[in-house]
């Protein structure tokens, strides 16, 4: 079937079987490889993307569900430059292998949109579905707090 949606600000139409998960449309059809496959059953968060302002696990979301929607992936999280989180992610040296990090960043960015100054408990609740085998969790938490602080100081909060 034909599905039309906006990806990273660009309107795209794809011809794929309707049950095709958004993940494989992004990765294989649109060649946006930043969104990762890891579990395939929405229990690890590596494939997290922003669909109309919601964090969505692309591996279990049929592409037909995003008809006319707006999808943002890690490739355009920061628009033209880097999102505050991405800059701080580098400075706090959050990633190790880096494979799960696009999912963490997408989830964290949506957390800050809704909850500009999250508590530890709010970070835990929002990020508990993102798995990292390298064990970067304490840095994820620190980086989110720091981004919240800097955005507030910069008047984005």
């Amino acid at each position: 079937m034909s599905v039309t949606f906006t990806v990273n600000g660009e309107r795209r139409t794809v011809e794929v079987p309707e049950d095709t998960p958004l993940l494989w449309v992004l990765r294989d059809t649109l060649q946006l490889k930043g969104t990762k496959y890891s579990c395939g059953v929405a229990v690890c968060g590596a494939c997290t993307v922003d669909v109309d302002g919601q964090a969505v696990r692309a591996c279990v979301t049929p592409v037909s569900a995003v008809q006319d929607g707006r999808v943002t992936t890690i490739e355009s999280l920061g628009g033209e430059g880097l999102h505050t989180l991405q800059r701080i992610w580098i400075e706090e040296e959050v990633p190790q292998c880096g494979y799960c990090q696009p999912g963490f960043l997408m989830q964290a960015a949506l957390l800050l949109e809704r909850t500009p100054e999250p508590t530890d408990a709010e970070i835990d609740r929002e990020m508990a579905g993102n798995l990292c085998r390298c064990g970067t969790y304490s840095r994820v938490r620190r980086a989110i707090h720091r981004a919240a602080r800097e955005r507030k100081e910069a008047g984005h909060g």
Partner: protein
Amino acid sequence: MVDRTVTRRDFLLTGAKGGAALVVAVHLPASDLFAEEARGDGFHPAAWIRIDAEGIVSVVVDEAELGQGVLTTLPMIVAEELEADWSKVKPLMPPRDPSSWVRPISTGGSTSTRTAWDPLRKAGAAAREMLREAAARRWGVPIPETRAEKGEIIHAASGRRLAFGELVEEAARLPVPDDPPLKDPADYTLIGRPKPRVDLPEKVDGRAAFGTDVALDGMRVASVEQAPAFGARILSVDDSGARQVDGVLDVFRVPQGVAVVARDTWAALRGREALRVEWDTSPSAGLSSDALFGELEGLMDEAGEVEEERGDVEAALGPDPVTADFRLPFLDHAPMEPMNATAWVRDGGVEVWVPTQVATASQEAAARVAGVRPSRVVMNVTFAGGGFGRRLETDDVELAVEVAKRVDGPVQVLWTREDSIRHGAYRPLTVHRLRGAVAGGRVAGWHHRAAGAGGRGLVVPGMASPPYRIPALRADYHLKETAVPVGAWRSVSYTHMGFVIESFMDMLAHRAGADPYRFRRAHMTEPRLRAALDLAVEKAGWDRGAPDGRGLGVAAVSSFSSHAAEVAEVSVEDGRVRVHRVVAGIHCGRVINPDTLRGQVEGAITLALGYTLKHGITVRDGAVVQGNFTGYPLMRIDEMPEVEVYTVPSEDPPTGIGEPPVPPLAAAVANAVFAATGVRVTELPFTREALRA
């Protein structure tokens, strides 16, 4: 982006833009990952520095970047001695023909920094001296009047300076000094100060290409149905449904199973779902974790191969020794990037793209499967989405080349999460019986018998040498090879030895009525481990004790030439353990890049918390029961303790950090659980039943 395209020829002949370049090769010892088994073939030239006319300093890093920061750490060592401008230092991947490289390219055993320290410093220093001499000649001044600083040679008396790039042509004609002077560490400006990891910019915006991200014109994707039980054989294949799936291009048998080749990933996965394969699983009938535990525990009454024996152990143990039996399951590495490899068989050769820890072994494996010489295999090593030892195996490449032999064009073989967990290279299941006695507040006798479902190198190391002065000690073991594939899991045998030995030492401390920290300390033979232990307990506030309702536990293990002690603070509620805080004291010699090092320790502790509290692999009917993170749960952010990492200040040569912080953790937590509840946990992962006992 990290440049991944160097060839040995380019490297030797020219700079990046052509023209002159100064190239320095030095000597690196062969990888000593399995030094116990494979000692011996000396030194090979392997560290290459190239400085081109633009002043760009390229350092070949012949180690895999797994997230441990090696692409940054090793060039830092070179840049320090070279007095390079750090902004002009770039890591280069090793050649795409690993057989042309002078040592096997293999990353494991926490050896990268340890083995690179001397040769890379020497290489940097040699290049610096050559540049100084070239400048001195040009200026007609004595060499001692020159110095190197931030990518330039400076003649202070006249105020003249020349950039490295302006000197490479002349420097390249000079002999490489054999024994260049090394810097006084007091003058270090890079080593020991945090440098941002060079691989991070592309890891936060989706550009970093892992194995799964390989995209080639005309690339097919294959999903392979592998044996549902170890050693199972195909009885029949019905591929009619699979072939009807839109996008499926071919279905065929390979030695590992049945491959479904498709236009894209989703078609391959759907095709595989529609595949019907009947298997004969009788070869592994009756193979199960339970049966193995039973069989190995049955061996606990029989003397095994002696690994170490000193003193009269039976006499020392006396009539009433402390005894404990331990059991630990198989473990899967479960890196977040599932197993995968891409291969293209053409023109009498193979090209491979793979996230591997072992480029050389992968090249040889691909050559073997394709029936070509290794030099006919081009290796493209991508970033790896975690390794932890799983990517020391070459089954990913072997499967991809088997499939690629039947495909016209490149094909990516992508393993699902379930494939990855069910076809692993597991940390062997082991059981242990310990007996020990104390007399006069000292350990008088110690007997450790182990039995494991794997080879000696994966089961035994660490057993013979608890880090304590013990007059009478015996360590013996039984090994049982099974059809369950086993491999090296971050810190290998120390994953179980650390837990068992440090839990038992705690039991002996309690029998002696002694403080577990002071009891350990009084017996400890390795001063660096003692320093790590002292640091951890001091920072943890050991003598203040735990807050009400919590317990503190400590453990200390030397492994892979480094020394790690950890203090855990836990509480237990309704059989559930909550780890609130872990404080690590580490002695790993001089620290190169401190923030990266802390990250490695944090990660090792997280990984170890996973196998302590949450997951194990269970084999039943010859197959792995778990298939995804639901059955094999990893630590989550909301379960994480506060983790604090301290290093013992040291001027010793650096030793590794990838593995050594793993082994103490499980015992520190178990010992803390005992302190909190009086329950001694002897089985991993902890179960609620055990904690309610």
